[in-house]
């Protein structure tokens, strides 16, 4: 009961602060330089146009969903504008309104990419996903995780490494990879139950990526893993995989 007034005070402060916090958000204002800007009822090419903003009119950009921007006119009308139409707007200082578009230029140079693969890891079926952070158009750090499901054993892999793209501006752009990781193997039971094991790996590999359309590209990859086992000799495991990826 003693804490009740403090709780009330906290709620009161939050209640009073909430409108300020919510209202503190500023939206980007852009000005129309085309004859008019079309506002759709929804974020899709099929949604009808229900309003337009004339040349030199302004809109506030509220939020972006894929290739669509939700905007509010100075008369309070809210609608969706396509990415292509937003290219015909400028900022308050007259400079062009630029934003990240999913196109061929973005394929050449982008910040992040993600993808999923299926393939073969040492004879077992592989499911894999990866994420990448690009330092520039040619060099990126990559993290990939995978699960392999075989007749003799199942397991998971995790790799971290670097990828170097040779000709990022080409539609077919080859790359090489180098890195390290771990593999956790769970042999399937037969007469004698073998132990699960986790081992470190190092890999070298290469592949090719092919730009499909918009933000999509295909990626085919080969990795040669050296598994540092506790036995007398190390083990070499080949990994082949094919999948699709996207950049953003």
């Amino acid at each position: 009961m003693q804490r009740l007034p403090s709780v009330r005070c906290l709620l009161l402060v939050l209640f009073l602060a909430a409108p300020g916090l919510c209202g503190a958000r500023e939206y980007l204002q852009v000005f129309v330089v085309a004859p008019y800007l079309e506002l759709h009822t929804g974020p899709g090419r099929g949604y009808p146009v229900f309003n337009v903003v004339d040349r030199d009119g302004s809109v506030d950009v509220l939020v972006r969903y894929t290739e669509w921007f939700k905007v509010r006119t100075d008369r309070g009308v809210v609608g969706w504008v396509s990415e292509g139409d937003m290219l015909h707007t400028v900022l308050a200082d007259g400079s062009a309104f630029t934003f990240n578009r999913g196109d061929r230029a973005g394929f050449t140079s982008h910040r992040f990419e993600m993808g999923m693969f299926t393939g073969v890891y040492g004879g077992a079926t592989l499911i894999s996903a990866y994420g990448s952070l690009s330092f520039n158009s040619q060099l990126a750090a990559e993290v990939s995780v995978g699960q392999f499901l075989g007749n003799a054993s199942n397991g998971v892999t995790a790799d971290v490494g670097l990828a170097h793209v040779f000709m990022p501006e080409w539609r077919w752009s080859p790359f090489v990879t180098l890195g390290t990781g771990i593999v956790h193997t769970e042999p399937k039971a037969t007469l004698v139950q073998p132990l699960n094991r986790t081992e470190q790996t190092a890999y070298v590999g290469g592949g090719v990526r092919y730009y499909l359309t918009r933000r999509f590209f295909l990626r085919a990859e080969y990795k040669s893993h050296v598994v540092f086992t506790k036995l007398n000799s190390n083990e070499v495991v080949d990994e082949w995989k094919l999948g699709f990826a996207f950049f953003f």
Partner: protein
Amino acid sequence: METGIRVLLLSAALALGGCASIHHLFHRHADDAQAANDSAAADQDSDAHPPRVIDPQVERRKIKVPQIRSHNVEVGVQYGALSIENFGTNPVYGFTAAYHISEDFFFQGAFGRSQAGRTSFETLSNINLLTPSERYFTYYDLSLGYNFLPGEVFLGRKVAMTSAFYVLGGIGSTDFAGDSKFTVNFGGGYRVLPTDWIAVHIGVEDHVFQSDLLGVDKLTNNLEATIGASVFF
């Protein structure tokens, strides 16, 4: 001797005084020349520019362009029923995370879990084929989805909500009966967005994998029907 020294000192004093005069004279001439030059330059400047009364010190304003928020990431929960082949229909719950790449395509990861019932053989013979822990049916999948038939749902005269049907397909793994199996999943659903950042889904999906659990190696179909809610951010 003393007179000679006095004469020498006097000569030296005169000589130093003369040098100082010459030096002063030279500098005075140089200063006069500099002053004359400055005066001429000042006259020229005063002709070119009017004298400044206030020296303005204006700093250029740095304009901070507000960031545009994106609603391309969707995270949700779902609940429904899963028909595990030969093991009856049971409740299933799960989580989904999706990234919307374009207005047409999205990439989705899903995780779900259910618990299998008893086969008819187990019921009739009163023999348990699986231990309780082996009855957990746990799956994950990575899928590519495609939105089609986008539209709007109207509630009365003033409320309109965007909606879309979608199909998806992908690959993943199912952990069931003490083994993990490579699984292909495909299905479809319907999504309604009451607001820009909340969605309600209903969906049907099939999880197909090879199983030899009952003695014959065959493809098993495990149909799932769910209802879910998700948040865009």
